[in-house]
């Protein structure tokens, strides 16, 4: 059975193809269109998936959209009605936005792909998240929590999933918290308040939190309160996201937390405003963590299960994930490589396969590499045409050569095989560097990534040695498989791993198993033999504002215009000729 999953129209559009119960490929539209967080209908991603599998649209048994667009429209309309007459200015925009394209998704899919409408199905948004989290995780039974800004009405759901002995699969979502009460929207409101872009820069709030203290818990307690049944509710007076798309927080919110940060102001934690912003970030981060831990603890007590699957954009919060693992009672926490809306494309397809068509369960390969593969020959051709230094080396020589470069303080663009599905670079589209000196972090921020000084970089290390450098709780290595947890760097190693140790002594670790990315694993070993520490700084292969590179040519053009010293694709190594950047 061939099932195409699609997510689109909000942010991070994507397509994923499931054939006979197994994912064949999945890719975000942004990787192909080169527009970050591309929310358009993912035609390029769909075409690539079909081409990759050698299928025509007629061959598909079903096309599954990741949410119910009419139910979402109902929520938008209801919220506008509830806010009458304050919603008068946002109403026309909201209606035009929805009626222009979003509610006609079935017709759009049918006309774009030429498939009959009866083949087009829709899952609930959070059911897609739940399926993406549970059906890709190597577990038989698990509790499930999904949390994001908002789907149709739900902003957070809890439930459980089971792979039964007879091969059937069950996902039961028990209950939900509904818009406007949303942890994701709370976090996004603070993202806007701190001068960052909503739906893009939430991870900057998490980075900034490390510089602050949670001194504003009382104030945040006024904008979010717990309900008697153990859920939570936002106090509407402090928010405006439910009535207008233009502003997230109200004047009352500003009275409580002070003036918002201007987007172009530098953040200096040594100034009083800088401290206030960092404290705001630390406080909302703490509230998010406390609430999620409490919800997870309750779910653990209710289900008695040992495994938890987390889905939704909130599951990208590595600090919260690590605390859930440590404090909720669950022994293992699984977060997929794409827990956000892009991952819903895969989740929707898998949900339809297992629960709608009732196909037997199949074990899904436990890796994130479902995207287009890199073409090393293309890199060699283009770099040669530009008179760059191009070498083609056999595997041992290449690993030794790159390990030498890294040990010498060089920065390497690393492309290997199929690209990652999800927002993290997990070793196939990465920029790698030595993790030891703080200057390396500053150089990367300044010359390569062009991003804010306060943002940390992540480390990658073989799973066998992870515990030597990082304080991993039981189950921590699993959470670190797709860089989904933030853990303390052991104090004795912090000065030796200064480029990846955040100001609060933590790091968002990737613990690598050899079978997942054998070439990167070999490189880590080789680097370890040279430096004594098999840890590398691993950041996504892109510059600020651009999607992660996909093809060799995109890696090459990024290499040409920033301070990367060497570029690797397959067996090809390119170094800059004298004269530097383009």
């Amino acid at each position, binding site marked *: 059975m061939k099932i195409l999953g699609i997510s689109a129209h909000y942010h991070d559009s994507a397509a994923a193809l499931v054939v006979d119960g197994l994912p064949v490929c999945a890719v975000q539209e942004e990787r192909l269109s*080169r527009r970050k967080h591309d929310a358009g209908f993912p035609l390029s991603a769909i075409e690539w998936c079909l081409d990759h599998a050698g299928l025509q649209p007629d061959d598909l048994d079903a096309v599954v959209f990741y949410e119910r667009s009419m139910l979402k429209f109902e929520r938008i309309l209801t919220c506008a009605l509830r806010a009458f007459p304050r919603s008068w200015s946002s109403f026309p925009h909201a209606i035009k936005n929805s009626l222009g394209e979003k509610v006609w998704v079935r017709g759009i899919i049918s006309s774009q792909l030429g498939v009959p409408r009866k083949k087009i199905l829709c899952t609930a948004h959070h059911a897609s998240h739940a399926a993406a989290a549970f059906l890709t995780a190597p577990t038989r039974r698990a509790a499930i929590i999904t949390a994001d800004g908002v789907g149709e009405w739900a902003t957070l759901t809890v439930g459980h999933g089971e792979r039964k002995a007879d091969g059937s699969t069950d996902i039961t979502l028990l209950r939900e918290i509904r818009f406007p009460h949303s942890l994701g929207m709370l976090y996004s409101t603070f993202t806007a308040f701190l001068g960052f*872009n909503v739906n893009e820069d939430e991870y900057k709030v998490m980075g900034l939190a490390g510089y602050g203290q949670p001194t504003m818990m009382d104030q945040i307690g006024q904008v979010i309160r717990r309900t008697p049944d153990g859920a939570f509710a936002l106090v509407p007076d402090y928010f405006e996201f439910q009535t207008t798309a233009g502003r997230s927080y109200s004047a009352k919110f500003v009275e409580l937390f002070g003036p918002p940060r201007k987007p*172009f102001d530098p953040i200096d934690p040594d100034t009083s405003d800088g401290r206030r912003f960092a404290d705001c970030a630390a406080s909302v981060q703490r509230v998010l963590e406390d609430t999620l831990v409490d919800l997870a603890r309750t779910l653990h007590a209710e289900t008695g299960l040992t495994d938890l699957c987390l889905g939704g954009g909130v599951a990208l919060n590595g600090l919260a994930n690590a605390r859930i693992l440590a404090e909720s009672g669950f022994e293992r926490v699984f977060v997929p490589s794409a827990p956000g809306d892009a991952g819903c494309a895969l989740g929707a397809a898998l949900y339809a396969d297992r629960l709608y068509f009732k196909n037997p369960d199949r074990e899904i390969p436990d890796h994130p590499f479902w995207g287009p593969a890199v073409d090393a020959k293309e890199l060699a051709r283009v770099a040669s045409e530009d008179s760059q230094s191009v070498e083609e080396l056999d595997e041992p020589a290449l690993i030794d050569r790159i390990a030498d470069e890294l040990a010498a303080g060089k920065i390497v663009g690393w492309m290997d095989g199929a690209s990652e599905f999800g927002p993290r670079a997990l070793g196939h589209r990465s920029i790698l560097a030595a993790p030891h000196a703080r200057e390396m972090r500053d150089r990367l921020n300044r010359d390569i990534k062009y991003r804010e000084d306060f943002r940390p970089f992540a480390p990658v290390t073989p799973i066998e040695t992870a515990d030597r450098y990082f304080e991993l709780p039981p189950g921590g290595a699993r959470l670190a498989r797709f860089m989904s947890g933030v853990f303390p760097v052991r104090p004795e190693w912090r000065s030796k791993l200064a480029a990846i140790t955040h100001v609060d002594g933590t790091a968002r670790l990737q613990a690598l198993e050899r079978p997942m990315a054998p070439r990167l694993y070999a490189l880590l070993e080789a680097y370890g033999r040279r430096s004594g520490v098999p840890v590398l700084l691993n950041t996504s292969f892109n510059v600020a504002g651009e999607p992660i590179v996909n093809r060799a040519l995109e890696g090459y053009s990024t290499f040409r215009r920033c301070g990367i010293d060497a570029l690797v694709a397959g067996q090809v190594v390119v170094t800059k000729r004298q004269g530097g950047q383009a």
Partner: protein
Amino acid sequence: MLRPVHRWIWSDFDRRVRKLLLFAEVETDGGRDILRAAEVPPDPLLRRLYLEHAIDELRHGDLFRERGAALLQSSGPRHRTFFSGTPLPGGHGLDDLRVEGEPDHRLLAFLHVAEKAAASRFTIYRECVDDDPPTKAIFEQILRDEVFHMNYTYTQLARVSPESYRWQVWRARASRLWNRYLRLAAAIADLIGGAILTVMYFVLLPPFAWMARRAERRTPPGWTPISREHQDSLTSQY
């Protein structure tokens, strides 16, 4: 003809900052589009030139952004909540630029006409900011780059399409005019649609708004059970 309008726009501090930040977005987005072009063509010379062009545009974006930010920071408390939500309008700089499947001559003609238009606008803006030497210096620097962009696109157009390069430029101009007309028509339609929806909002919605609020009061916050049938039904969009 529009110089007095431009002078009026640039004379105001808020509008000046807004313009600079808007230009930053437009130049950066345009740079990314051209970067995309640099990753497509098989012609190595064009690829190199596009890459250089893209780097220039991205740098222009940074120059505008830094200047806008510097002006914002120099402003007093009057401007503190100037940008409280999404700071910048959306939109892509070269939103008509379709890289994939476009032949080189069409892309070059498009870029040539776009650069020429940008250069003439920036020349006017440079004159409007005589009172602001740092901003004027940015326009001067960018204008120098625009001359290079205009020249290389024209030279390369003549190289890749020696028989018809003049015709391609005219065609690009006509296409630009047509797209302007389409944008204007879409804006007018948007305005009319907005007006009709606003009238409907005040005329038709009040009773439904009353009912929606009444229903909301009856729904306490907290957990809501999820119906199994609803979760399992994949044929409904509701």
